[in-house]
């Protein structure tokens, strides 16, 4: 059995039988054995979060420091807290912070949304790219770029699109359905309509307007408006604890429904909240960054790998998502500087081969 496979029955057995030592773990990893078992495993998830937090801080420093004017990462971090040269403080806080914040928060939101959806559907392929919300955000943003006359900025339109799609999908799917499948597929279908509408608008628009709109079809962090970014940041700050609480409950939904119910979980209500949370997080993220792919698929994977199979790794997934997005944006900005590659292109190019490997590798541990 793959160490990553979260076989519901075995983990259930250990959950219910704490006296028996847990021997299913491979050795030499994050597992430190003191005291009670549950403490051990929390420790592993906690250490994973700490490690990822460290990586996040390093990436924030690097991202804030790189650009036309190079600033050492430590100076950049100091400047973030109003220390050091005035010039650096201006560059970091007034020019670069919005972008880094946008990337980090969008990545964190997508990572959390992916983790929630994957745990709920017990499927590693469920992810925020496929529930149609990003298609809707793209369609609305493209509409505002190619000339449906509106005073709203594209990101405002994207947010409206995301909210519209989220409520529409909820209304039409009539709730989450078993494992959230009904919601996922309804979103997929509605997303297809939005995708067709986007293509239609791109084809009808004059070529210049269509070129302006293309970044919204792939996801970019360039020139984001401060309001939507702060909306996203506040959203993540508020929703992260909620997601962590829901994640703890979701751990029990890995068990068969009847068992979870007898343990006191209101399964249907939990499903509803999970999907509402995942949808809101995705909506906020795509309103800022556009449809950045692969983050919601890959971040929970890394989170699980680091945090181990015992917890639903909400916080590690969020941090991993933030790291991935900031790293992709950093690469996109610096690799072919001064030409800038949108972050969505980097994630697609790096994530594509990863996805193919993911889909075609030998079917071990497919079940969540």
């Amino acid at each position, binding site marked *: 059995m793959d160490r990553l496979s979260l076989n519901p029955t075995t983990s259930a057995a250990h959950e219910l039988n704490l006296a028996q030592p847990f021997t299913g773990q491979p050795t030499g990893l994050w597992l430190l054995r003191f005291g009670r078992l549950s403490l051990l495993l929390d420790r592993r998830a906690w250490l994973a979060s700490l490690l990822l937090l460290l990586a996040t801080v390093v990436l924030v420093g690097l991202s804030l420091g790189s650009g036309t004017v190079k600033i050492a990462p430590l100076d950049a971090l100091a400047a973030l807290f109003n220390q050091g040269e005035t010039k650096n403080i201006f560059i970091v806080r007034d020019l670069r912070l919005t972008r880094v914040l946008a990337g980090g928060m969008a990545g964190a939101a997508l990572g959390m949304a992916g983790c929630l959806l994957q745990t709920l559907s017990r499927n590693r*392929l469920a992810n925020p790219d496929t529930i149609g919300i990003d298609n809707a955000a793209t369609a609305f943003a493209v509409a505002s770029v190619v000339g449906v006359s509106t005073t709203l900025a594209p990101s405002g339109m994207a947010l409206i699109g995301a909210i519209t799609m989220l409520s529409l999908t909820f209304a039409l799917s009539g709730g989450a359905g078993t494992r959230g499948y009904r919601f*996922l597929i309804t979103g997929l*279908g509605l997303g297809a309509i939005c995708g067709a509408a986007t293509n239609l608008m791109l084809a009808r628009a004059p070529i210049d307007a269509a070129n302006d709109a293309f970044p919204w079809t792939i996801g970019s962090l360039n020139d984001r408006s401060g309001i939507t970014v702060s909306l996203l940041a506040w959203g993540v700050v508020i929703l992260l604890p909620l997601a962590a609480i829901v994640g703890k409950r979701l751990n029990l939904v890995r068990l068969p429904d009847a068992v979870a119910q007898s343990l006191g979980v209101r399964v249907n209500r939990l499903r509803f909240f999970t999907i509402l949370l995942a949808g809101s997080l995705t909506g906020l993220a795509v309103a800022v960054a556009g449809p950045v792919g692969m983050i919601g698929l890959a971040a929970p994977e890394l989170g699980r790998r680091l945090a181990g199979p015992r917890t639903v790794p909400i916080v590690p997934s969020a941090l991993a998502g933030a790291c991935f997005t900031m790293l992709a944006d950093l690469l996109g900005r610096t690799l072919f500087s001064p030409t800038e590659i949108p972050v969505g292109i980097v994630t697609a190019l790096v994530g*594509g081969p990863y996805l193919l490997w993911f889909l075609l590798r030998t079917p071990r541990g497919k079940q969540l």
Partner: protein
Amino acid sequence: MATTLLSRRMLIGVLAAFGLLAIVILLSLGVGSDNAIGLAQVFAVLQGAGDDQARLTVLDLRVPRTIIGVLVGVALGSAGALLQAAARNPLAEPGLLGVSAGSATAVVVSIALGASLNNLQVGVAIFGALIGCSVALGVARMSGLGDDPIRLVLAGAALSSMLAAVSSVILLTDQRTADEVRFWTIGAIAGRNLSSITSAIPVLLLGLAVALLLARPLAALALGEKVASGLGQRPKLVRTGVMISVALLVGSATAMAGPIGFVGLVVPIAARAMVGPDIRRALILAVLLGPSFVLLADVLSRIVARPTETPLGVISALIGAPILVLIVRSQRLPAL
């Protein structure tokens, strides 16, 4: 075999499908985005009479369009029926599984590398479809057949969104390609040149022939892999055949009309509703119903937003997506 195919239900189904097809072809010839040329004039033109404008409209616009619609419908309808039978999954559809996306991405890449839509190589589209199809069926094998229909669709969705991102990358960096492809990528059967599809037709016919040959083994495979092996079929070979056939069909359809989704979802479902789940019958019905669906969507595309036309890809998504939602909303997914 003969007794299976010639039941009364099948006979009625085939006759109904033919009737529908005839009506839809007449509609496709007779309905335009304006009301200038009606059926009477169409018949006049087809008999060699009629004024110049009517001749131009009918012979150069509507007839080619109808022919392409029929071909695309045959290809996508039968490809959908095959895929659904092979994956034993009512949601297995070339568009949803990423087969069309693979084909479209390959075309975009080839155009970025210097090809042109006018002399588009069908081979490129087929190659892309083959990749998409092999990934899709590879995933279907892994997740356990008939085990979980949604898992396959999620894999396809992930694959599609990745391929769409690759296309976007190219369109973002290459203005010429973007300008050339953006009309093609919505999926439409209007304004295509008849001469440009001649290379696609033999491929399509080959794919269809393979599909018809595979009907019988697939019917055996529907009983389960072990039973099929016991009956003398070779499941691996059959699956490879399905892959090649679907790639040929979807590739040629995409080369002709661009990526068009949901045809392969709706048509086989209608076919099964009419003649039952046996793939041998459903495939024949799908071949007949596919053109009707495509042409009907195309006729709608001319009249929903008169005087402009709405591309076929948009209409088929508008029809297909609600049907997808309805399937998922039904209490349990119909097993295949």
